[in-house]
């Protein structure tokens, strides 16, 4: 069916998205290039790039996103493989495995902050009780542990998402591939390596890039738990933008940082669009 009718159906949604997405992006670029009086200047970028904290926030972000994704994908895939086996109670375990993903981010943040509490937290108690650690650790205040701890919480929150997506991919694998492998006498792990993984690779690529985007956006956990501390050690760029704009009220500086952040994210999205449409199916 050709013609303009389809376009008319799509138009309202597109207009709303243009107003709420395209316009703000253009406006950000404008804001980043003017001073408080509306005169064009490059100072915002200089002011934002000069301090060491900007670089630190960026590297923290890369560390946070990269570290999270590696474990999210590995644990999520292993979980999916487990949940694809047949065993008693499987459907209940499948439902329970989704819970971390469904729990609101802010709730996950406060609950884990309470569990990681230095003095009264259950985690220090259990680890000390099992003699894994000699003394309570200030997980969220110690410079050496704060980022790994935040990454662990983020992994807990999102590995179920990887698991359900990969599980759906596993279920779509035709059974005769496994039968052929069995005829060839393949072991369980040989099957995983030679049959399963190649078949779910498109899903993994799609999921990984989604995780990158969500990671780049991931303010909630860190903001609610450490607010970027101690001493900016867990500060990431999105939180820096928020603080510049709404704590220091430097809207122009925040806009400049937004533009830089946006460019980095856009490069990743561009890669996504090149690689993914055939995998996501729904894109076309």
């Amino acid at each position, binding site marked *: 069916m*050709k013609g303009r*009718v*389809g376009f008319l*159906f*799509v138009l309202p*949604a*597109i207009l*709303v*998205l243009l107003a*709420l997405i395209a*316009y703000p*992006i253009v*406006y*950000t670029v404008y*804001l980043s290039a003017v001073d408080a009086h509306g005169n064009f200047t490059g100072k915002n970028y200089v002011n934002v790039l000069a301090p060491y904290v900007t670089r630190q926030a960026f590297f923290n972000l890369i560390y946070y996103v990269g570290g999270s994704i590696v474990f999210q994908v590995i644990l999520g895939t292993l*979980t999916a493989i*487990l949940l*694809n*086996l047949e*065993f008693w109670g499987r459907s209940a375990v499948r*439902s*329970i*495995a989704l*819970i971390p993903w469904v*729990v*609101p981010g802010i709730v996950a943040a*406060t*609950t884990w902050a*309470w569990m990681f509490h230095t*003095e009264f937290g259950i985690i220090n*108690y259990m680890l000390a009780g099992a003699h894994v650690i000699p003394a309570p650790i200030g997980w969220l205040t110690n410079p050496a542990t704060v980022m790994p701890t935040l990454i662990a919480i983020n992994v807990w929150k999102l590995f179920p998402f990887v698991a*359900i*997506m990969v599980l*759906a*991919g596993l279920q779509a694998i035709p*059974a005769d591939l*496994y039968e052929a492998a069995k005829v060839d006498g393949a072991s369980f792990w040989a099957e*995983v390596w030679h049959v*399963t993984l190649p078949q779910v690779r498109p899903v993994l690529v799609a999921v990984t890039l989604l995780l990158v*985007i969500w990671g780049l*956006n991931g*303010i*909630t956990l860190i*903001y*609610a738990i450490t607010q970027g501390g101690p001493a900016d050690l867990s500060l990431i760029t*999105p939180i820096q933008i928020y603080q510049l*704009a*709404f704590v220091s009220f430097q*809207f122009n500086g*925040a806009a400049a940082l*937004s533009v830089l952040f*946006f460019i980095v*994210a856009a490069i990743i*999205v561009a890669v996504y*669009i090149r690689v993914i449409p055939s*995998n*996501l*199916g*729904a894109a*076309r």
Partner: protein
Amino acid sequence: MSGAGSSMRRRPEAAVLILILSVVLVVVCLFPFAWMALSSIKKLPELFTVPPHWLPNEPTLANYWTVLFNSNIPRYFLNSCIIAGGATGVALILAVFAAYGFARFEFRGKPYLQTFVLVGQLLPTAAIIVPLFITLRTFHLVNTYWGLILVYTIITLPLSVWMLSSYMRSIPAELEEAATIDGASRLGVLFRITLPLALPGVVAVVVYSFVTCWNEFVFALVFAQDQSVKTLPIGLSEFSTEFNTDWGGVMAASMVMTVPVVLLFLAFQRLFVGGLTAGATKG
């Protein structure tokens, strides 16, 4: 029946291994939730005991009493319902038309528009909070329900369009063609034939949108600074500072916020997971 390692050739050790791994998985997923529930029924002194007690000596509902009657949480609960419901509704109305347009018509620029919608879903939201804030302030929409509903549409609309159009594509077009021959209008076909058939997809979209808005934190932090419109996530973070981190209260408020979404999600789980994963596995 699909999957590696069918049960026929499974050895006893493998069964034990599967059992252990499933138990570990369940414990990892549920432990924080369980600890939240246990902490929410402990009295303050018991929360601050070293070593911590696993089970409360004197279980109490006092924390829930505080949350329900001596805090702003009920108001925030209502705000969350209105805003999440509103944003879900707005996105759904727009998405039904857009999804139908994408699923059933060919028109110039369609691939670009589809890509644009897809990109909307991948947008780094932190990069647009500043201009959105200024824009909303210009229209006096900061600290209003409509302001938050509008910005949440950014999050819900792209995914709603995406999920719903892939669902509509899976419905055979012949039914609609028959109705068109019988003289039904385009809109008549959409509302009398396609939409009823796409109902499971609609439910999936509604659940996903609602839960996403319910959980959203960053936009709420920026655009809802007044008590009259603050949502639960903001209320929760506020609760911890307001009472100098009354952990019992925080945990009770967390329960109040979490239980509805978990129940909602589990009730519609099959439908929802099917809708979300359909796009990723086809094609």
